[in-house]
């Protein structure tokens, strides 16, 4: 039961993991969990960032994230996976994205988690607009992983 959550309010990724794992996973069934959390920094490419607005395409964003999870599942055996992503106004220190994969073994967990994260960065319809001392600007492209 993979899950995709778009969060319009700040979330605690560690609490999300605890909640999801308790609700969705059978005790003793998984041996390896790989997790990535992306958090808003107060610097980007040498510039101070005061706040961030995350635009998305309601409907397509969720579908694209679900497609990414389906594609990952066709490549690696995993028991479960979770993507949580913020939208809207974000302050420095707040988590932006959480990707977690529960597997039997660690190789698949690491590979699938990283693949999902890179697919999300390259395909999921989100757009960042940063506010800094020099004003407001749309981020034009993601940095390489």
């Amino acid at each position, binding site marked *: 039961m993979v899950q995709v959550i778009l969060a319009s309010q700040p979330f605690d990724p560690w609490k999300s993991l605890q909640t999801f794992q308790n609700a969705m996973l059978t005790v003793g069934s998984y041996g390896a969990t790989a997790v990535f959390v992306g958090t808003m920094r107060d610097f980007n490419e040498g510039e101070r960032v005061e706040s961030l607005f995350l*635009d998305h395409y309601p409907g397509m964003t969720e579908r694209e994230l679900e497609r990414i999870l389906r594609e990952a599942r066709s490549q690696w055996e995993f028991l479960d996976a979770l993507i949580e992503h913020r939208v809207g106004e974000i302050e420095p220190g707040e988590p*932006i994205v959480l990707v977690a994969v529960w597997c039997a073994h660690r190789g698949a967990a690491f590979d699938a988690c990283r693949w999902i994260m890179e697919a999300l960065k390259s395909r999921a319809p989100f757009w960042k607009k940063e506010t800094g001392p020099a004003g407001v600007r749309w981020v034009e*492209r993601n940095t390489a992983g």
Partner: protein
Amino acid sequence: MTIRVRLFASLQEKWRIDQIDLESTGMEKVADVWLNLTGEELPSQVLVAVNMEYARPDTPIKDEDEVAFFPPVTGG
């Protein structure tokens, strides 16, 4: 033919359009929708989706499709 067009992020701000329904008989593919909307050629870096799936400038469109245009994605 009615096509719902949606723009996002910097494109939405540049063209001051969030969502619009275009009525026209002259549109056969995604690139035609952009031309019809803006009067310009579709720039190569603009991404397109038809009915919430990634598509290409030459992807054919049909009545009641939702066609979206947006810049490179920057989430995560």
